[in-house]
């Protein structure tokens, strides 16, 4: 079994993962509890793109389930010697890991490998396509404070065009009947996104997006994926940066989320990042619990 994206994942499957992840949350505990569900198994984290939180999170999740975890980054591997992706994966496959967690800059790279390799593949982010475990941990974080996703108004603001987080979240939220408002500068908000799933609307105005929102998800401007001269940082922050004054437009207990890494003063102000509304660190914590549930589901 693979986990390649949210789009083709059944709602019941998502519910099962979210429910199971509650079991792994540390709650008030000092750390994540240890389990031995995956004892004797090996999970390889293969990261072709820089990542701190996702890679560490998967590594801790595997270890907390009793599996061995090995992390490989592309720069330190044979990829830099010109080996093709298929050959790299075949080589790793011959070392018999039980699953490969993969991040890659090319959209569809894990789908391509899943067609050619027998090992389960977990997508830890592919290009500008999907980042399924991020959407799952975001849903977990919202559900820690809300009884259900249905009817919630979720504003996703920033560089939507290049965001795999936005795509995965749109698919997930739509499956559960939430309303999603996507907001960003016109060049980073393709009109087609309005038809990505049901319940999605688009706006270029941050005020319109935040009005009555239950959840505000801020996204980083992914300069590394833009191939043209970007809007200046000052201009961007003026029109699309989240500041304290905006929060008054949202619902009284609206949550502010961000998949990280955050750029203070670029897409949100420091005051917002550190405010009571921010659940950014809860997201990080839930990342481990959700990834434990995912690994268990794929492997156990």
């Amino acid at each position: 079994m693979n986990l390649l994206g949210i789009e083709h994942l059944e709602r019941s499957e998502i519910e099962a993962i979210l429910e199971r992840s509650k079991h792994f949350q540390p709650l008030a505990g000092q750390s994540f509890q240890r389990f031995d569900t995956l004892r004797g198994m090996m999970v390889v984290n293969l990261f072709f793109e820089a990542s701190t939180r996702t890679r560490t999170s998967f590594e801790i999740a595997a270890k907390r389930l009793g599996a061995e975890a090995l992390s490989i980054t592309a720069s330190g591997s044979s990829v830099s010697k010109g080996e093709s992706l298929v050959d790299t994966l075949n080589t790793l496959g011959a070392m018999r890991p039980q699953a490969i967690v993969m991040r890659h800059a090319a959209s569809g790279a894990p789908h391509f490998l899943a067609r050619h390799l027998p090992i389960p593949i977990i997508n830890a982010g592919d290009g500008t396509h999907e980042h399924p475990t991020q959407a799952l941990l975001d849903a977990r974080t919202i559900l820690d404070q809300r009884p259900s996703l249905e009817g919630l108004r979720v504003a996703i603001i920033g560089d939507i065009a290049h965001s795999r987080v936005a795509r995965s979240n749109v698919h997930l939220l739509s499956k559960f009947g939430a309303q999603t408002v996507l907001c960003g500068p016109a060049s980073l908000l393709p009109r087609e996104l309005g038809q990505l799933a049901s319940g999605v609307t688009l706006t270029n105005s941050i005020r319109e997006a935040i009005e009555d929102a239950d959840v505000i998800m801020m996204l980083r401007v992914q300069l590394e994926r833009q191939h043209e001269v970007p809007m200046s940082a000052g201009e961007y922050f003026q029109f699309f940066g989240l500041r304290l004054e905006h929060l008054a437009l949202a619902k009284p207990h609206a949550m502010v989320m961000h998949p990280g890494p955050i750029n203070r003063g670029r897409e949100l102000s420091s005051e917002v990042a550190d405010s009571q509304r921010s659940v950014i660190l809860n997201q990080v914590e839930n990342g481990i619990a959700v990834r434990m549930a995912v690994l268990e589901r794929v492997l156990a």
Partner: protein
Amino acid sequence: MNSLVIRNGRVLDPATGFDGVRDISILDGIFAESAPDGTPEFDARGLIVAPGFIDMHVHLREPGMEHAETIDSGARAAAAGGFTTICCMPNTSPVNDSATVTSYIVSRAKQSAIVNVLPIGAITKGSAGEELAAIGSMKKAGIVAISDDGRPVMNSRVMRRAMEFARALDLPVIDHCEDLNLSAGGDMHEGMMSTRLGLRGIPSSSEDVMVARDIILAETTGARYHVAHISTRHAVAMVAFAKSRGLRVTAETTPHHFVLHDKELHDYDSNYKMKPPLRCEADVDAVIEGVVSGAIDAIATDHAPHAGNDKMQEFERCPFGITGLETAIGLSLEALVHTGKISLMRLVELFTTGPARVLGLSCGTLTNGSPADVTIFDPERSWIYDVNQSQSKSRNSPFNQKLFRGGPKATIVSGRVVWAA
């Protein structure tokens, strides 16, 4: 030698409009009134007998990339697809931008090709878009058109000069219409599917603006101008408009552009990656409508072989292009004839007199006295395309294991049966 009588077939000859059962006689490689008793016979009962099909847009990869295709293997794939004449694009290594390279291709074709191979020369040196190639000497060496296929001439002034030259030499200018600034980095058609898949888009407008520019330049210069692999609704409309104004503007489309949509890309299969990209439904419908109305003059395959390892990569790293020679007749029958959109006669026209007129070739007819190139096909026969049995050296076709209704039966070049099913 090379004499044959093709008996009892339904003969379709768009040049004369003849449609009926009759015998075709070939004497010493030439269509003749009759052949002496004892001449070998080919029984074509229940089959269509047509002038030899012309594919005016193929990539043979020789010289330079012989691991993907050679003139020999490409010609065999052409024969297996029912083509008797193919025109090869100049993006080889080195680029066909001089009489030397043209002569090399012509002589290699003479030695090894089982079908007629007509080279197309580059517009600019190295197809770099800056300095005009040696167009006149290439014409003397045998080119039938000029094109910087795959690397369109972005500089409008250079394109204008090329058209002026080409007009004086009476050569058509074929353009792969793509504004490289609009399409930069794109991997598939820009639209709902590219947004969903997170792949960068090649907008229809990148084709439209170049077709518009070229038509304006064609009017300014009076050149014969041909749009390669037309794929968008606006481009089709502009070609129809240019024709209505009496300009010498023509267009071809490929089977994959009227058979497939961009939704085929859902699983990131690089066998659906080509340029122009598979477009949306509205564009595909307009291309079919252009074939029906006559805005589009020819069907060409843009046969683009790539070695297996080149397509075994991340989607965005895979090269553009698919093979197409062996599946063209089957796909065209399926999408155009069996759906009732065009007649068999029109289909034959799109593969014979259509491209012949674009290029100014004398072939594509069954007229007595001309070289006896014949395509015999069966519009009904069921067959399955197995890419591993392909005559091409490459395997990059999205139609592997597809069940076809109708396909080629025999290919005759100068009276010789070079392929038969």
